[in-house]
C-alpha cells in the first residue's frame, strides 16, 4: 500500500516536472512558431507526395490509353494486307511500374526517371533511358519531401530545444534553484523527457498526417507487393531512431559544461557536417571512384551496330541474330529484298553491339549504389535517407530493377511477335488482345534488408555518441562549483569575475 503510494507520488512528480518543462519550452520564443511551421510544411509535403502518386498513376493510365488509341489508329490506317511488322514499327507498348505509397514520403528518383516507358519492338537500348519532363531549375534547387523534412529539418528542431538544456539554466542562474527540487540526474531526465515528448508528438503528427493523406497501409498490408512486408513499419522505426540519434548527440554535447552559444555552434556544425558535407563529399568520392563513360559509349555503339547492318548482306545480320535466338536458325530471309524479320534482326544487332557497354554501365551504377549504401551507414541522415528510398522503391537499385523488367518485357514481346514476323503475317492475323503485358519489377530485396542495417547503424551511432560524451565527462578536470556555474565566454571558457 505504502509502496504504491510512493510510486504514484513519484509518478506525479515526474508528470509535473515534464508538464512544467513542456510549458517552458513551448513558451520560449520561436519554438511554437517553428513547430507550427514544420507541421505546415509537413502537411504540404505529404499533400504534394500524394499528388505525385496520383500523377504517376495518371501517367500510367495515359500510357495505356495512348497505346490503345495508337493501335486503333494504326489498324484503321493501314490496309489489311499490310504486314504486321510495319505496324509494329510504330507501336509503343506501355511498361508502367506502379508506385509505392511510401514514395510520397521518400520521392527519391521519381522526378528524374520515367517509370512509364513505352517500348517499341526496335532496338531497346535507345529507349531505356528516357528522362522525365523535369524542369532542371527546380530539380537543381532540391525537393521538399516528407523524408527531407524528417531527416534534415526535425534534427534542427531537436537542436533548437536541447542546446541550452543545462547551460541555459546555468546562465540564467536558475540551475541551483532547480536542484533544490530534484536531483540533477532526475531533473535532466525530466527535461529531456519533456523534449522527447514534444518532438515525438511533432514527428508522430507529421507521420499521421502523411499516412492519412496518402492512405498508406500502415497495418494490414499484404506481406508481399510494393508496400508490403512491413515497409511502412520499418520507415517509421528508422525515422524514430534517427530522431533519437539527434537527441543522443544533443545530449552528449549539451550536458558538458560549455556555454549555450558554444553548444549551439557545435551542434549546428555537426548538423551541417552530417546532412550536407558528409553526403556531398561521399557523393563526390563515389562519382570519382566509379566513373560512367559507358553511358555515351552504349549510345554510340547501338546506333552504329544497327545502321551498319543496312550496308551488310542480310545473312550476316541473321547469323548474329541466330546466336541469341538459335530456335529461329532454321528460318532464312531473302538476300535481295526487305523483310521485317531482317529489319528487327538489324535492330537486335544494335542492342548486341551495345550489350557490353550497357552491362558495364549497369555494373557501374550497381557499384555506386552498393558503395553508397555501405558508406552511408557512417552518416546517420544519409543511412536513413537511402534506406527510406529503398523501402519506397525509389532508389537507384529499384530503377535498375525496373530497367531489367523492361528488358524482360522486350524479350517477351519479341518471342511473341517473331513467329508473326518470320511468317510475314498481315495485321489481321495478330490477336492484339493476347499481346503480352508488362510485368512490373519486384521490390529490390525484403523490407528488413533495407531497414535493418540502417537501424543498426543508427542505434550504434547513438550509443557511440553517448559513450564518448560519458567518457569525456568523467575525464574532465576541475568540477568545482565555480567552474560549473560561473559565466563563460563564447568559446566556453570561464570569464574570471564576469557578470552573471
Amino acid at each position, binding site marked *: 500500500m505504502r509502496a504504491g503510494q510512493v510510486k504514484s507520488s513519484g509518478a506525479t512528480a515526474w508528470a509535473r516536472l515534464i508538464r512544467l518543462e513542456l510549458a517552458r519550452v513551448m513558451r520560449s520564443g520561436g519554438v511554437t512558431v517553428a513547430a507550427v511551421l514544420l507541421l505546415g510544411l509537413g502537411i504540404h509535403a505529404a499533400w504534394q507526395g500524394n499528388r505525385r502518386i496520383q500523377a504517376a498513376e495518371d501517367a500510367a493510365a495515359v500510357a495505356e490509353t495512348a497505346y490503345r488509341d495508337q493501335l486503333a489508329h494504326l489498324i484503321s490506317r493501314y490496309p489489311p494486307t499490310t504486314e504486321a511488322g510495319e505496324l509494329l514499327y510504330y507501336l509503343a507498348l506501355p511498361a508502367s511500374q506502379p508506385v509505392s505509397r511510401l514514395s510520397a514520403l521518400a520521392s527519391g528518383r521519381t522526378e528524374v526517371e520515367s517509370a512509364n516507358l513505352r517500348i517499341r519492338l526496335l532496338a531497346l537500348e535507345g529507349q531505356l533511358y528516357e528522362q522525365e519532363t523535369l524542369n532542371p531549375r527546380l530539380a537543381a*534547387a532540391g525537393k521538399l519531401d516528407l523524408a527531407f523534412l524528417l531527416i534534415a529539418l526535425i534534427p534542427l528542431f531537436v537542436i533548437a530545444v536541447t542546446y541550452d538544456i543545462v547551460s*541555459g539554466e546555468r546562465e540564467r542562474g536558475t540551475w541551483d534553484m532547480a536542484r533544490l527540487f530534484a536531483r540533477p540526474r532526475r531533473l535532466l531526465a525530466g527535461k529531456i523527457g519533456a523534449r522527447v515528448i514534444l518532438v515525438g508528438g511533432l514527428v508522430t503528427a507529421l507521420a499521421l498526417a502523411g499516412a492519412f493523406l496518402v492512405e498508406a497501409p500502415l497495418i494490414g498490408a499484404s506481406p508481399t507487393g510494393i508496400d508490403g512486408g512491413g515497409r511502412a513499419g520499418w520507415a517509421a522505426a528508422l525515422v524514430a531512431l534517427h530522431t533519437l540519434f539527434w537527441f543522443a548527440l544533443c545530449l552528449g554535447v549539451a550536458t558538458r559544461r560549455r556555454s549555450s552559444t558554444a553548444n549551439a555552434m557545435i551542434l549546428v556544425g555537426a548538423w551541417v557536417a552530417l546532412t550536407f558535407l558528409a553526403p556531398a563529399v561521399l557523393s563526390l568520392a563515389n562519382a570519382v571512384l566509379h566513373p560512367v563513360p559507358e553511358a*555515351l559509349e552504349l549510345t554510340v555503339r547501338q546506333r552504329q551496330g544497327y545502321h551498319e547492318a543496312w550496308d551488310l548482306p542480310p545473312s550476316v545480320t541473321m547469323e548474329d541474330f541466330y546466336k541469341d535466338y538459335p530456335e529461329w536458325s532454321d528460318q532464312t530471309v531473302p538476300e535481295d529484298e526487305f523483310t521485317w524479320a531482317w529489319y528487327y534482326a538489324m535492330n537486335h544487332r544494335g542492342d548486341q553491339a551495345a550489350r557490353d557497354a550497357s552491362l558495364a554501365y549497369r555494373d557501374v551504377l550497381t557499384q555506386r549504389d552498393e558503395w553508397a549504401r555501405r558508406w552511408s551507414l557512417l552518416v546517420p541522415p544519409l543511412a536513413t535517407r537511402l534506406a527510406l528510398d529503398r523501402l519506397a522503391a525509389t532508389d537507384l537499385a529499384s530503377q535498375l530493377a525496373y530497367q531489367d523488367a523492361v528488358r524482360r518485357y522486350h524479350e517477351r514481346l519479341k518471342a511473341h511477335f517473331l513467329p508473326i514476323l518470320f511468317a510475314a503475317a498481315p495485321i489481321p492475323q495478330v490477336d492484339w488482345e493476347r499481346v503480352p503485358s508488362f510485368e512490373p519489377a519486384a521490390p529490390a530485396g525484403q523490407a528488413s534488408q533495407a531497414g535493418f542495417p540502417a537501424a543498426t547503424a543508427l542505434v550504434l551511432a547513438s550509443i557511440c555518441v553517448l559513450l564518448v560524451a560519458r567518457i569525456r565527462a568523467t575525464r574532465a578536470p576541475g568540477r568545482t562549483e565555480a567552474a560549473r556555474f560561473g559565466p563563460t565566454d563564447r568559446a566556453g571558457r570561464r570569464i574570471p569575475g564576469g557578470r552573471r
Partner: protein
Amino acid sequence: MSNILLIARRQVGAMREDRYFVFLLGLVAALGIVSVLAARHHAASEAEQRARYQAVVDRQWAEQPERHPHRVIHYGFLVFREEAPLAFFDPGVGAFAGTSLFLEGHRQNSASFGDARHATAMLSFGRLTPAAVLGLLLPLLIVAAGFASVSGEREKGTLPLILAQGATPARIMAGKALGIGAAAVVAALPIALVTAAFVAAGGGDQPAVARMLALAATYAAYLAGWVLLTVWVSSRSASSRAALARLVAIWVVLCVAAPRLGTSLANALHPMPSRAEFTAQVEEAQRQVGDSHNPDDPFFSALRDEYLARYQVASVEELPINWAGVVSREGEAATSRINEEQHQELLAVHRRQDRVMAWLGLLSPHLAARDLSMAAAGTGPEAVEAFRSQAEAHRYAIIQRLNDLHTHEIHYENDRAQRLARQHWTQFPVFRSDLPSLRRVLADRPLSLAALGLWIALPLAGLGLGRKRLPRVGVDRLSR
C-alpha cells in the same frame, strides 16, 4: 575613420582568439579548395569524354558508306552538350539536363544521360561545389564570426566603454562589419584564387573573365548582405545566445527551406505533364500529319496536285524531281512544326515555374544569388535551352538537306535501291553551340538583381535606423 579600423581590428582579434572559429575558418577554406579541385577534375574528365565521343561520331558520319539519303536521315547525328568553361565553379542545372542528344528525322528527342541519373540519393542533400561552399557554408561562417560582435561587447560590459571613448554607434557597427567581412574574405580567397588560376590557364579570354567578375560581384554582394545582417541582428539582440539562435534560424529558412519550398510551390501552382502525357499529346497532334514514308498518303494529295500543275505533268512518275523526297521534306516540315509547338508548351510551363522561383528570390537571397550565379557561370536553364534549340535548328537543316538530296539526286523509279556517293556526307556542317551572352542572361533576371540589392539595402537600413538605440538594447534586462 581610425575608430572604425580600431573596432575592426578588435573584432578580428576576438575572432582569432576563438579556437572554434579559427577551426571553422580553416575548414571552410579547405573545403573551398577541395571543392574547386574536385569539381574541376570532374568537369575536365566529362568535357574530355564528350569531346572524344563527339570526334568519334563526327568521324562515323564522314566515313559512312554509300547510302540512300533517307537511310542517313534515320542514321541521324549525335551531339553532346559542352559545358560552359565556368561550369566547374557552379554546375547550375547541368546535372539535371541531358548531355547527349540524338538528332534524327521525324522526331525531336530529348537529351539523355545527365549526371543526376547516375547519382544515388546522396545527391539530394546537395553537392560540394565552389558555389555551394560560397552560397551555403560561408553565410554560416559569417554568422559564427559575427553573432557576438555587438552583443558580446554588451554582455562583457565593454560596449559603454567603447561608446565613452567617442566611437559613434554607426562607426562601431561599420568597424564590426569590416572585421567580419575580413574573415569572409579570408575564407573565400582560396576559392577565388584557384578559380582565377584555372580561368587564366584556360586562356583567360575576355568572356570568361567577364563571367568570373560577374560571379565575384554576385557572391560579394550576397555575402556582404550576410555580414550586414549579422551585425544588425547582433546589435539588436540582448544576448549573444539570442543573436546566434536568430541568425541560425534565418539561415535555415533562407538557405535550406526556401529553395525547396519554392520547388514545391512552383510544382503545385504549375504542374508539369509527365513524360507519358507529353508523348501521348505529341502523338495525338502528329496524327493530323500523314505518313511521310508513304508517298501516296492522302495528306499530301493537295501538295501533289500543286506539283503536278506546276510541272504540267499528269502523274508523279513524270515529275523531273523525286516525289518521295518532296513528301519526305513536307512531312518533316509539318512534324517539326508540331514537335516544336508541343515543346514550347512544355517550356512555357517551365517558365511559369521559374517565375515562381524568381519571385521567391525576393524573400530568399540565397535563391536569387544562385540564380545569378548560374547565369554568370553559363550553366542556367537558358544555356540548356540554347543548346536544345541550336541542336534542333541543326537537326532540321541536316534533315532537309538530306531530303533535298533525296528529291534531286535519287530517281523516283526504284527509289530505295539507289545510293549516294560517300563524298556527300563530308560536306555537311559540323554542330556548334553558343552560350547565351552574359549581358542577356543578366538582363533576363531583373527580379534576382533587385532581390540582391534589397538584401543589402534592408539590413543597412535596419542598422541606420537602429543606431541610436544601440546603447539601450537589453539594458533593462541586464540590470535586472
